[in-house]
């Protein structure tokens, strides 16, 4: 009997799902089964009463506010319409910031490069002069051993190599 009721309840629900009339078998069962009858009636009553109660409740809401819809829409758009401009502005600021930093860094580097070049050049010149001295000394010392002709030869080579007037 319980299994029958289970099947009957499923069949009642199936007919509710399809919006179709109950099969004769179910109708026959309902005549003799108060539990299934109560199940069917409670579902039917519930949906009817629920609809009536819901309609009663929503009547208190009044008509929908369509008139203020375009205003609310433009209000919302009002907040959003500046978003692309703000985004563009932020992008521009970032690009400018990094671009300026890059430019400054390039300028500093080229300035330092020039400074270094001059510094290295001065060092080089100084070292050449020092070297010249040492070479002259070397030349003198070698002359002491090898003869006076060597001095003039070495000095001439050095001055020719480094284009220095000694």
């Amino acid at each position, binding site marked *: 009997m319980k299994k029958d009721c289970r099947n009957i*309840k*499923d069949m009642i*629900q199936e007919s*509710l*799902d399809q*919006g179709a009339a109950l099969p004769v078998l179910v109708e026959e069962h309902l005549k003799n089964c108060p539990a299934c009858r*109560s*199940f069917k009636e*409670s*579902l039917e*009553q*519930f*949906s009817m*009463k*629920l*609809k009536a*109660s*819901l*309609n009663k*409740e*929503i009547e*208190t*809401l009044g008509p*929908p*506010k*369509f008139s203020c*819809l*375009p205003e*609310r*829409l433009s209000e*919302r758009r009002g907040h959003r319409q500046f978003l692309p401009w703000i985004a563009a502005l932020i992008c521009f600021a970032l690009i400018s910031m990094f671009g300026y930093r890059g430019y400054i860094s390039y300028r500093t580097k080229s300035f330092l490069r020039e400074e270094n070049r001059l510094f290295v050049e001065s060092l080089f010149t100084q070292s050449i002069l020092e070297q010249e001295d040492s070479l002259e000394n070397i030349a003198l010392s070698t002359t002491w051993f090898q003869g006076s002709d060597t001095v003039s030869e070495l000095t001439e080579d050095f001055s020719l190599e480094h284009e220095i007037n000694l």
Partner: protein
Amino acid sequence: MRITETKETKLVDDEILIRQFVGTGLHHSAGNRKAFTTLMERHIKGMRRLLFTLLNGNMEDMEDAEQEILISLFNTLPHFRFKSSFKTYLYRLCRNKAIDLIRKKNRERKILFSISGQPSSNLYEPEAEVLKKERGNRIFKLLFKLREEERSLILLKDVEGLSIKEITKILSIPEGTVKSRLHRSREKLAELMAGEDI
């Protein structure tokens, strides 16, 4: 037969109204706005019934959700592709907005409780809203004892009279699952009703 005809006529009319609203692309023109108003007036009752059911009868939240839905429709209708009926699309939107609102409220409530140091509870507790507002309708008390999905299923099928296929589209669950869950929800409701005098 007559019911089918009415449904089809309504469906065609919905499509015409949507096309009129979308029409030239200027949704703010008076004619287009009228088409939108006519379309919404046709479905507003069903929409409100669903919102009431999902939001535990909280009228303030209902009005908020309704405005959100109308604004959303105003924006999204031009992209409507007529792959489903407008009613299905609207109910799906309603359900999503209601769920978003419930989540938002619950999040706010959790934050409030964490600040005050009290244990948090769910904002949309069954019966809470009905009892608080002294709108102690027994039917609603029973309805709000069900879970959100169970309520949606019963409302959409037994009150709004939608087909299983339409419910499948609204809830994004397979047809078989809709059927089995709907049957279980009805049985649960019948059990709850057994102890009540309605």
